[in-house]
């Protein structure tokens, strides 16, 4: 956790020798807290102070990279417990478990299906990230399946195997892909630690609960295996919520380094709805990786959408390009509606216009991603701005009726907008839900 200027001051020599270029140690401490100066400018730091100050500048939850190239997954480096405090930074990885007991043909079919799980929503491409190969057979079969999966898909890999002997045989072929080893437990921690170091692979710490995490993570990092992911095993949802919350709190609020890693969860529910409801819970509550067994499109679409929602930056709402959009077979007779370029406003209006089955034009005005009322209050959705957008998009030329429909919430600007735009202003409904009946009665 970041130290305050005063916390830092307590660690300094307090001699005010000025060698750092500051008049006092306190002044230096204040700058350091703001990251305005580097630590090594003070030549008189004790080793203890140095290590404390260095540690405090590390992120409390380590950023872990799995896989390589464009498709690599980065998780961790989270800074808050609640998304409104800042934002959740690295969307959790979603993946599927494939067992080596499955037939090759079946595995290929699954890979094919998984690779087609791509969806575009609100201008973003949503995709799954990982495939975990689970070892249940001998080393030879595990190697075959790992090879099959890594050759037939571009996803980042997880090797689910806790036998160091087997891992040693499989790792040379795939180490370059930076797979995640799953994992280290009390029995194999030393051997797995060595392998992780040798092959520079991240490792999952498989603990029974919260009590044995610190011992395992310390054992691994002392061996030089420092890219870790935590897994506390299959448990009831409420127990899982408790553990996830504790791990996040200990890492962020107690600066406990042993807990400062992302968390992996395998879902074990049989029912396909239960499976996604559990997964949804962990998307909201701090998971770094979620592994599923079933692969239905509707399951994955709903989970990727939730991930998109939860990981949206609350300070920077999703925006769309401000321009004129044609909905359906819009002609010059079709109505022209005006809204903001806040994605949600636009897509809500769009949804209702589509539902009305009446072709229309929608002009999205550049409000810097603010919703109608917020933008109006902030003077980003004013008659001037709207006229500006109308001109830029040549919207008036797209219709022959010279009428504009504005959101009901900004009815007060009608007169002013009428004057400035030279168009007839029609006040639409306050809520988008009223659009279909409004358009039908137009």
């Amino acid at each position, binding site marked *: 956790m970041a130290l305050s200027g005063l916390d830092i001051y307590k660690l300094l020599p307090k001699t005010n020798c000025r060698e750092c270029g500051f008049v006092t140690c306190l002044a230096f401490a204040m700058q350091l807290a703001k990251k305005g100066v580097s630590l090594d400018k003070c030549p008189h730091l004790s080793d203890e102070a140095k290590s404390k100050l260095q540690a405090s500048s590390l992120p409390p939850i380590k950023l872990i990279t799995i896989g390589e190239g464009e498709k690599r997954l980065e998780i961790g480096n989270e800074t808050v417990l*609640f998304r409104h405090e800042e934002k959740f930074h690295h969307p959790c990885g979603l993946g599927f478990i494939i067992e080596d007991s499955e037939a090759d043909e079946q595995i290929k079919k699954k890979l094919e299906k998984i690779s087609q799980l791509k969806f575009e929503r609100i201008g973003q491409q949503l995709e799954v990230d990982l495939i975990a190969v689970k070892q249940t057979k001998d080393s030879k079969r595990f190697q075959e399946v790992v090879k099959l999966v890594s050759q037939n898909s571009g996803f980042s890999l997880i090797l689910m195997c806790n036998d160091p002997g087997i891992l040693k045989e499989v790792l040379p072929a795939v180490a370059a892909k930076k797979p995640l080893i799953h994992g280290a437990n009390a029995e194999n921690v030393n051997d797995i630690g060595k392998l992780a170091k040798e092959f520079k692979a991240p490792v999952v710490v498989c603990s029974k609960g919260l*009590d044995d995490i610190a011992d395992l993570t310390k054992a691994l990092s002392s061996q030089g295996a420092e890219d870790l992911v935590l897994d506390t095993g299959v448990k009831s949802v*409420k127990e899982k*919520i408790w553990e996830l919350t504790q791990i996040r709190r200990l890492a962020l609020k107690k600066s406990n380094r042993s807990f400062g890693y992302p968390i992996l969860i395998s879902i074990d529910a049989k029912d396909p709805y*239960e499976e996604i409801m559990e997964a949804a819970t962990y998307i909201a509550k701090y998971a770094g990786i979620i592994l599923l067994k079933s692969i*239905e499109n509707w399951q994955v679409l709903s989970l990727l959408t*939730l991930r998109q*929602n939860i990981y949206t930056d609350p300070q920077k709402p999703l925006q769309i390009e401000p321009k004129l959009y044609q909905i359906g077979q819009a002609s010059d007779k079709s109505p022209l509606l005006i809204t903001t370029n806040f994605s*949600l406003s636009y897509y809500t209006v769009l949804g209702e216009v589509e539902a009305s089955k009446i072709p229309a034009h929608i002009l999205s005005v550049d409000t810097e991603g603010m919703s109608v009322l917020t933008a109006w209050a902030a003077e980003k959705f004013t008659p001037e701005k709207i006229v500006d957008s109308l001109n830029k998009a040549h919207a008036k030329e797209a219709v022959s009726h010279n009428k504009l429909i504005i959101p009901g919430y900004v009815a007060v600007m009608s007169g002013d907008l009428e004057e400035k735009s030279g168009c007839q202003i029609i006040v639409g409904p306050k809520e988008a839900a009223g659009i279909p009946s409004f358009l039908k009665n137009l």
Partner: protein
Amino acid sequence: MAQELMLEKWSSAISVVNIGATKEEGGSRSKVIKVGGQATLPFLFPEGSIPNKPVIAFEIWDSAPMDWPDTLKQPFADVLNDPLKWAKKCVDDFKAELLCLKLQGAHPDSGDKKPDDEAELVERILKTVDVPLVILGCGDDAKDNLVLPACSEAAKGECCLIGSAVQDNYKTLVAAVLADGHNIVAESPIDINIAKQLNILISDMGLSVERIVIDPTIGALGYGLEYAYSIMERARLAALSGDKMMACPFICKVGQEAWRAKEAKAKMTEFPAWGPEAERGIAWEAITATALIQSGADILVMRHPAAIEKVNKYIDNLMTNDKIPMSK
């Protein structure tokens, strides 16, 4: 070695709202539904008590819904035209604990039903089923101000939950609810300050804040869910830290929002990559509910019986008595 944990010490708890009145309490419901009372964040059992589970209210309408997709109409196909049969089906076949009567047909654009007729309907529903009732107006302020007081009076003594009071139209409903002994839904447009302000206005009229349920105005999965999600988290943090005016349970109109989403409605023939609409619609409603339960929802107004069944099972699993081992 046992790991030292990090427990928050909350100074306050969410208020408990009782919905429904039994014979002893002057009503005719078979039981009372209690919501709220949490002394910690959602499901952090070792940290504080969570006396009441989130409950699902089956949404029924006073008139057959025109714009519901087939997936949603199908389970109720035989009763959509008859609110009494619809109510009975929810209770008898789907074991509903709570019903939410939406008076959509009172809207000037969709039926313009008369206040007297709606009041009579409320009376008849209360005679047909014995579960507690939530009553929601059509959303047209002027019309709701005529319809809701009539319904409130018709349900006098049954301790319903009636809504919605909004910032610029709350007085009529508050007066009716006060006179007839009900609870009120206070609806704010995804805005924590308005939510608080409205609660202050309502309690200034003499209706205690313990009889208010907040509707934070949710968006569906993919349609702004995260706004209400964070508003609810913020409100809960404020409430647990002692802000009495925020310490109300939440009601979330999950069904209404989820089933407006294209992803819930569209046929697979239109979007092959999305998978079959039957499962997808149910999933959309269930996942919207799941996320909101995790940010503090107390009452979820839902539509599809299959989604309700799944969410109920999820809630039951969360609320089982078995203790979370504090350290293992």
